[in-house]
C-alpha cells in the first residue's frame, strides 16, 4: 500500500527547476505592464482634474514668457512653436515670403512709402521683436517708438511705467534695450488670474471712442479682442496742440467698416505718404484683419479668432488652447473640422478657391490703380494743374485704400469673402473712374492716344521707375 503510493508520486511528472525562473519572469512582466497601465490611468485622471499647477507665482507684467511657462508648460511649449518658419500655405504661412518680389506692381503703388523698399510676410510671434528691430522700414530718419507697441511683451510693463503718451513720443532706437522679449504671455493675460486682458491703450481708446464698454464684453469676445490689440488698421497721430507725437490711434470713431475708416481719414485730411508718380496723397492700410473678420460669417456666428487660429488641443487627459498661433490651414483637423465635418482636402480646396478668386479680383484692381498713377503722371506732363487733377486724385486715393484694405489683410479674402470681393470691385471701379476723368483731361491737352506705360514687370524695373519719379527725373509718358 505504502509502496504503491510512493510509486505513484514518483510517476507524476514534476516541473523542472528552470521553469520557476520562467514563471516568475512572466508574472513579473505582467505586473510591470499592469503597473504601467495603472500609472497611465492615474496620470490621465490627474491631468484632467488638475489642469494647472502653480509652481512659482508670476510677477505683475512679467515680460519673460519662460517664467509663465513654468506654471503653464503646455501653453508655453506650443507658444514656442511660433519659431517654426518653414510653413507655407498657398497664400500665407509663417515664412519670410518677399511680397514685392512676387508682385512688383506693389512697388509702383507704394512709391514714396517704405513699403516700396521692403515688404516681407511676417513670421511668428516669437520673432516679433527681432523682426521689427531688423526692419529697414524703421530706420533713421523714421524712428517712432510707436512701432514697438505691438512687438514686445515688455510693452505692457513700459506702458504702466511711463504712460502711453511718453512711450509713443520716444525714439525707437532708444527703446531697443528695454524691448528684449517678443510678443508673449503678458500681452494678453493677467499674471494673477490668467484672465484675458487688454494691455494696449489704443484698443481701449478706440472702443471708448465708438461708445463701447470694454468691461461688458464676454470671454468669447475677448478671445478676439486680445488679437485686435494689434491685428487692425491704425495710424500715428501727431497733434502739437494736444501734445501728441506719433500717438497710436485706431480710426474707428465712425465705425469699423472700410467706408467708415476711410471717411475718418478723409475728414481729418490724414495722409501717410505722397506717391510721387501721380503726386497723390495716399493712405497705407495696415492688416485690417479684425475689422474684415467682423463683416464675415464666422464673426456673425460668434466664432472667435482663437477658435480657428488657436484651437483646443488634447494631450492625454488635458485639454488646452494651442498657443502655436498659425494659419488654420496648417491645422485643419483641430480648427475647421470641429464644425465642418469634411475631409481636410475638401476644406483646403474650399478655402483656397475663395483666396484664388479674391487674388484675381485684387489683381484686376491693382492693374487699374497702377495705370491710374501713370495716367495722372502723364496728365501732369501734359500740363494739367492740381485743381484739374483733384477729382481723379481723390478717386485714386480711395481706390488704393479699398484695394490695400483687402490686399494687406492676412486672410487673402477668407476672413470675409463677400466683403473682400465687394471692396476689390469698388477699388477697380474707382481707379477706372479716375482713369476716365484723366483721359478727358488729357484729351483737353490734345493727347488722345495711350500714355507710354513703362515696363514694370520685374521688381528691378519697377524699383527703377519708382526711383526715377522720386528723384524728379520721370520717364516721358506722353507719346
Amino acid at each position: 500500500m505504502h509502496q504503491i503510493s510512493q510509486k505513484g508520486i514518483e510517476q507524476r511528472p514534476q516541473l523542472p527547476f528552470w521553469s520557476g525562473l520562467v514563471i516568475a519572469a512572466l508574472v513579473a512582466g505582467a505586473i510591470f505592464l499592469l503597473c504601467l497601465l495603472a500609472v497611465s490611468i492615474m496620470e490621465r485622471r490627474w491631468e484632467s482634474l488638475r489642469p494647472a499647477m502653480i509652481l512659482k507665482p508670476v510677477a505683475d507684467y512679467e515680460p519673460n514668457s519662460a517664467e509663465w511657462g513654468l506654471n503653464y508648460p503646455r501653453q508655453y511649449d506650443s507658444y514656442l512653436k511660433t519659431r517654426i518658419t518653414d510653413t507655407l500655405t498657398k497664400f500665407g504661412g509663417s515664412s519670410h515670403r518677399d511680397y514685392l518680389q512676387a508682385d512688383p506692381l506693389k512697388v509702383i503703388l507704394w512709391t514714396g512709402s517704405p513699403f516700396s523698399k521692403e515688404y516681407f510676410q511676417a513670421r511668428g510671434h516669437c520673432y516679433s521683436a527681432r523682426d521689427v528691430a531688423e526692419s529697414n522700414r524703421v530706420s533713421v530718419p523714421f524712428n517712432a517708438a510707436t512701432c514697438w507697441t505691438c512687438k514686445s511683451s515688455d510693452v505692457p510693463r513700459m506702458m504702466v511705467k511711463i504712460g502711453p503718451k511718453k512711450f509713443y513720443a520716444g525714439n525707437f532706437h532708444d527703446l531697443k534695450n528695454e524691448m528684449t522679449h517678443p510678443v508673449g504671455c503678458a500681452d494678453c493675460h493677467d499674471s494673477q488670474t490668467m484672465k484675458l486682458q487688454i494691455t494696449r491703450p489704443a484698443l481701449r481708446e478706440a472702443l471708448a471712442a465708438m461708445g463701447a464698454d470694454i468691461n461688458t464684453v464676454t470671454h468669447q469676445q475677448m478671445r478676439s479682442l486680445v488679437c485686435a490689440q494689434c491685428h487692425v488698421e491704425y495710424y500715428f497721430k501727431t497733434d502739437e496742440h494736444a501734445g501728441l507725437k506719433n500717438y497710436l490711434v485706431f480710426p474707428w470713431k465712425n465705425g469699423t467698416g472700410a467706408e467708415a475708416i476711410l471717411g475718418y481719414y478723409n475728414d481729418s485730411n490724414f495722409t501717410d505718404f505722397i506717391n510721387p508718380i501721380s503726386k497723390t496723397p495716399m493712405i497705407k492700410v495696415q492688416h485690417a484683419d479684425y475689422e474684415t473678420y467682423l463683416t464675415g460669417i464666422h464673426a456673425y456666428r460668434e466664432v472667435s479668432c482663437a477658435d480657428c487660429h488657436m484651437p483646443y488641443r488634447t494631450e492625454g487627459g488635458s485639454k488646452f488652447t494651442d498657443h502655436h498661433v498659425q494659419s488654420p490651414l496648417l491645422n485643419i483637423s483641430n480648427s475647421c473640422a470641429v464644425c465642418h465635418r469634411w475631409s481636410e482636402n475638401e476644406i483646403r480646396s474650399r478655402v483656397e478657391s475663395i483666396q484664388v478668386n479674391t487674388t484675381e479680383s485684387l489683381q484686376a484692381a491693382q492693374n487699374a490703380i497702377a495705370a491710374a498713377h501713370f495716367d495722372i503722371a502723364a496728365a501732369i506732363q501734359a500740363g494739367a494743374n492740381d485743381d484739374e487733377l483733384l477729382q481723379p486724385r481723390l478717386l485714386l486715393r480711395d481706390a488704393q485704400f479699398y484695394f490695400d484694405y483687402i490686399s494687406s489683410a492676412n486672410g487673402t479674402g477668407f476672413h470675409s469673402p463677400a466683403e473682400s470681393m465687394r471692396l476689390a470691385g469698388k477699388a477697380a471701379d474707382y481707379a477706372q473712374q479716375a482713369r476716365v476723368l484723366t483721359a478727358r483731361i488729357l484729351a483737353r491737352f490734345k493727347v488722345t492716344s495711350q500714355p507710354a506705360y513703362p515696363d514694370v514687370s520685374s521688381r528691378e524695373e519697377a524699383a527703377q521707375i519708382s526711383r526715377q519719379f522720386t528723384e524728379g527725373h520721370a520717364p516721358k509718358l506722353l507719346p
Partner: protein
Amino acid sequence: MSFERNMKLLNLAIMVVTLRGLPKKWQAAVYFLAGLAVGLVIFIARISNAASYLSDAPGACMNCHVMTDAYVSWQRGSHSRIAVCNDCHVPHSNPVAKYAFKASDGLRHSYVFTFRLEPQVLDLSKGAKPVLQDNCVRCHTQIMQTVHLPDSSQRKCWDCHNNIHSSVHGLSSSPAQLRPELPRAGLHSVRKGVQ
C-alpha cells in the same frame, strides 16, 4: 486513449497551479508575484471604473477623458432627452453582439489611449458606421417607411442630420473650464466627511 490524454492535461494544469516539483522557496516567490498581479488587476478594475463598462450609463464613456467633449455635445443635442451613448453606438440585435462589440471597441480604445495614439478630432470608425445607421433606423422606423433615398446604401442619416451631437463638435464643444466632473474612482468612500 482520450481519457488518458485528458488526465495528462489535467495533471499538467494542476502542476502549473500547484507548482509541484519546484523548491518550496520558488513556489512561495511565484505565489507572491501572482498575488501582486491579482491585487493590481483589482486595483486597476477599481480606478478605471471597469464595472461601469457593463452598464449603459453614459458616464462610463467619459471615464476615458477624450470622450468628455462627445459627452458634452451629446448632452446639448436633442437626443440626450431620449437616448444614451449605447443606444446608438453599440449593436442591439442581440446581447452577444452587443457585449462582443463593446469588448472589441473597448480593447481598441484602451490600447489607443494608453499608447497616446488618439487623434485630435474623433471620427466614426469603419465598424461603427453600420451599427450607428442600424440604430437610427431602429427608432425612426416609421419615418423611414415613407423615405426612399437614391443610393441609400451609400448615404448615412448623419450626412444630412449632422447636428446630433449639437452643432459644434469635438474639442470646441466645451471650454476647458466647463467640463463636467469625471466619475469618481478613488478612495472617496473611505474619506467620509472630507469635501
